[in-house]
């Protein structure tokens, strides 16, 4: 008969597996999933609405299209999130040309953007053609007298399609 040593006779206890109740965790994940699905935008266009801009409400359901983004508040103008005109700084003012229908700083920035797109179109294979689309994120309180100057400047810079960005609740 074989004898086991005393050490081997002692039955080793295995540590118990930790049993974690994940039911509530899954509840949270489901809620998060619903939340993410609800806020999902299938257009793929990321539009930043800067502080100081309140978008007008609309019933339209047309999805956004990619293009240059011009954001306009009562005191600032941005092009693709870069400030091109800031009237809050002392001494700054809107400088027009073309008989007061064109905002110079905006026009210069848009021309730069246009030439950049054109350059990419020429040099990169398979690059999309310059669409001439400008997404206008304009504060709802602005008067048409100012909005039309923005529109005129965009047209002069070679952007032929305006896309007025509006908000809509579901």
């Amino acid at each position, binding site marked *: 008969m074989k004898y086991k040593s005393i050490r081997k006779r002692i039955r080793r206890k295995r540590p118990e597996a930790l*049993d974690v109740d994940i039911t*509530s965790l899954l509840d949270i994940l489901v809620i998060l999933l619903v*939340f993410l699905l609800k806020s999902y935008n299938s257009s793929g266009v990321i539009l930043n609405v800067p502080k100081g801009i309140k978008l007008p*409400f609309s019933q339209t359901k047309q999805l*956004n299209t990619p293009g240059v983004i011009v954001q306009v508040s009562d005191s600032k103008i941005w092009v693709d999130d870069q400030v091109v005109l800031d009237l809050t700084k002392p001494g700054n003012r809107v400088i027009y040309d073309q008989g007061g*229908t064109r905002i110079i700083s905006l026009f210069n920035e848009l021309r730069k953007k246009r030439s950049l797109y054109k350059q990419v179109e020429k040099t990169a294979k398979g690059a999309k053609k310059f669409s001439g689309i400008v997404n206008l994120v304009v504060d709802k309180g602005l008067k*048409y007298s100012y909005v039309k100057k923005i529109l005129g400047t965009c047209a002069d810079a070679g952007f032929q399609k305006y896309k007025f960005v509006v908000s809509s609740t579901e």
Partner: protein
Amino acid sequence: MLRKPSRKNFKYKFQRPNLIPILDAVFIFIFFLLFSADFVNLFEINSNVPIVSNSPPPKKIPLNLTLRITPNTLTLKKGLNGRVVKSFRKSGPNYDLSALHQSLVNIKKKNLYERTIIFEPTNSVDYETIVKIMDEVIILRKMDEALYRKDKSGLDIRIKELFDDIIFGNIKS
């Protein structure tokens, strides 16, 4: 001499961590986030730049539908001479947009293939008002009369939009 106690005598008890209060807190936190979230989606309204063309005028007389927007009145005109179709005065603080919409539906009924409308707002009109008017001009609602036009193969297609090609006619004035 005392020696180190044997480890065999110790029993390791795996205490199950109580996650319930933590998860409760996270749950409340998520609800708070959900309620504070603004489910605002961004959409767009199209408009095109008016083009000055040197090409000869079309044989068919264009509808040339124009909407003049002043702080008190909306004036709908058509034709090359700008004949006034109808004027809508403000009733209270708001424009009579439903009357405008109905007039546009009637015009669309007679011009099923027409998509263009020219906007001529005056300087003092605010952007929010223009967007509201654009909505009335573009959207053909389900309650409106169903309009159909023929496609290339001769099939009837339901028209979903009234005048979706909006042009601002006075951006250089």
